[in-house]
C-alpha cells in the first residue's frame, strides 16, 4: 500500500480563554476544559488522504472545516494530535522546518483569495517562488506558464482589484500551481462566486486535476460541490466526521439522520424525484 499524502491522527483543536487552555496538555484533560467553557473546533479527528485523490470535507458553518485545514499547515497550532503531510511530520517541525515545508510541500487556496492587492497578477502568482528565493527571470517564466494554463493570458500586469471574483480565484489557483507543491489545500475556494462561474471553476479544477494528479483537500459547505468534485468525502459536524466515504455511498446510505437531512435538503440531480415524493408523503 502506498503511504498516504495526508495522515491526520487524533487531531484536536480547542478554543477558549487562555486560563482554561493552559491546563489542556493531554486528551484526558479535555472533557474538563470543554465543561469549563472551551470549544472543540476539531475533535479527535483521524483520517488519511491518498496521493492523487480529491478528498472533500463538507459541513455547515462552524463545523470546524477551516480550523482543520489550517491545522495541516499549522496556521492554527493544533492542541493535540499528529499531522503528516507529504511524508513530513508537520507537528514535529521547528520554525525554519515549518517555513520550508510551507514553501515546498503544500499550497493553499482561500475563500477570499488572499491575493496581495499591491502586487500585479504576475507578482502574485510568483509570490511563493519569490519567498523561496527563486531568481526573478525564472519565477517570471514559471508564473507566465501557469497563468496561461488557468486562462489568464494577457492579465499579467493588472492588479487583482481589476479582476472579477472568478478571475481572482484563478490567480489564487495559479499561485498554488506555480509552487509545484503536490498537495493543495482549498478552503471554500468557490463559495464566493456566482453559481454559473462556480460551475465553470469546478470544471476547470477537474480539468486541471486530470492533467496534474495533485492531492487535494477541498473544503465546502455545499453537498452538490462535494459530490461533483470528491473522490471521497467526509461530512463534518461539531469538529468530528459523521461519515466518510465516496459520494455515491453517502448519497445512497446516509450513516444517520444528520447526513440524511443534508442529502435530502439539497436539490441533487437524480435525487429530485425522490425528495418530491417524500414531500407528498409527509
Amino acid at each position, binding site marked *: 500500500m502506498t503511504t498516504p499524502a495526508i495522515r491526520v491522527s487524533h487531531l484536536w483543536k480547542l478554543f477558549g480563554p487562555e486560563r482554561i487552555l493552559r491546563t489542556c496538555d493531554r486528551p484526558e484533560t479535555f472533557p474538563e476544559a470543554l465543561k469549563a467553557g472551551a470549544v472543540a473546533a476539531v475533535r479527535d479527528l483521524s483520517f488519511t488522504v491518498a496521493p492523487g485523490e480529491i478528498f472533500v470535507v463538507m459541513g455547515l458553518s462552524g463545523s470546524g472545516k477551516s480550523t482543520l485545514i489550517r491545522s495541516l499547515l499549522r496556521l492554527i497550532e493544533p492542541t493535540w494530535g499528529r499531522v503528516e503531510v507529504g511524508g513530513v511530520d508537520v507537528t514535529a517541525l521547528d520554525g525554519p522546518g515549518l517555513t*520550508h515545508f510551507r514553501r515546498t510541500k503544500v499550497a493553499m487556496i482561500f475563500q477570499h483569495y488572499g491575493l496581495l492587492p499591491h502586487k500585479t497578477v504576475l507578482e502574485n502568482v510568483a509570490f511563493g517562488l519569490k519567498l523561496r528565493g527563486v531568481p526573478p527571470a525564472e519565477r517570471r517564466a514559471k508564473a507566465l506558464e501557469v497563468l496561461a494554463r488557468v486562462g489568464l493570458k494577457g492579465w499579467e500586469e493588472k492588479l487583482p482589484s481589476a479582476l472579477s471574483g472568478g478571475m481572482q480565484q484563478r490567480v489564487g489557483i495559479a499561485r498554488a500551481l506555480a509552487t509545484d507543491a503536490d498537495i493543495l489545500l482549498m478552503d471554500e475556494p468557490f463559495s464566493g462566486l456566482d453559481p454559473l462561474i462556480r460551475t465553470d471553476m469546478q470544471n476547470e479544477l477537474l480539468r486541471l486535476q486530470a492533467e496534474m494528479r495533485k492531492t487535494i483537500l477541498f473544503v465546502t459547505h455545499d453537498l452538490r460541490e462535494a459530490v461533483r468534485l470528491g473522490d471521497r468525502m467526509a461530512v463534518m459536524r461539531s469538529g468530528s466526521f459523521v461519515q466518510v466515504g465516496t459520494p455515491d455511498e453517502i448519497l445512497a446510505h446516509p450513516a444517520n439522520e444528520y447526513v440524511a437531512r443534508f442529502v435530502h435538503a439539497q436539490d441533487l440531480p437524480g435525487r429530485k424525484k425522490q425528495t418530491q415524493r417524500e414531500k407528498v408523503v409527509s
Partner: protein
Amino acid sequence: MPEFHVAGWIDAFVDWLLLSYGALFDGISAGILALLLRIQAGLEWLPWWAAVAITILAAYSLTRRPGLSLILGSLLVMVVALGLWPLAVETLAVVIASVVLALLLGIPVGVLMAESRWANAALQPVLDAMQTMPSFVYLIPAMMLFGLGKVPAVLATLIYSTPPVIRLTNLGIRQVSPEVQEAALAYGATRWQLLKEVRLPLAMPSILAGVNQTTMMALSMVVIASMIGARGVGEEVLLAINRIDVGRGFEAGLAIVALAIVMDRLTQAFARRWETPGVP
C-alpha cells in the same frame, strides 16, 4: 500632607548626563548640525523662482490639478513678496531636518510597536508624554545639553513631531488584512518577508499620512523653536510680539501658514499616490 518633589532628582540627572556623556551630546549635536547645514545650504543655493517652479511641477505631477499647483506656487511667491524668503529658508531647513530625523527614528519604532506587544505597551505612555508635555519643559534641558541654537531647536521639534508617524506606522501595520497576511504565511513567508512584502507596503498610505502629520507638527513648532535659537520666520514673530508690532507679526504668521499649506498639500498628494486600489 508633606510635599514630595522629583525636581531635585531631575536636576541632578541632567547634571550627571552633562558630566558623564558630554562627549556623546557633542557628537549628536555635530551630526544634527551637519545635516541641518547641508539642507540649508541646498535651499539657499536654490533661487526662489526655482523653488516656486519645483513646487508647481511637483504639485502638478502628483495631483494633475493645474489650479491647485498654481495656488501653491503663488503662496510661495507671496512669502517672497513679503521679503521673508531668506527667513523661510532657515525655517524650512529646521523643519526638514527634524522631519528627516523623525522619519528615520519614527518608522522603525512604529514597526517595532506593531511587531511586539511588549514594545507597544511600553511605548504608548512615552508617546502620550511626548505629545502632551508642554514643550517649554524640555526646552530647558535641551538647552543645557546642547546649548542655544538650531540643534536644540531640531531636538525639541523632533520630540513634538515624531509621535504621529510612530502611531500611524503602528496603526497602519495593525490594519493590514489578516487574510492577506495569512496567505503570505501559508506560502512560507518568514516574519521579515511578511513585513517587507506585505505589512509595510500595505501600511504605506497610513505611514505617509503620518509623514504628513509629522511635517505639520514640525511646522507648528517654529515659533517655539525660535525661542532657543532656531531663527527663521519664528523669530520674526517673536520680534513682532516684543515690539507689539501687529502688522509685522501678521505678515510673519501669514508666511508660516503659506509654508504649512504648501507642505501639507504636497505630502498629502504624495501619500495619495501610494494608495492601491482595492485596499480600504
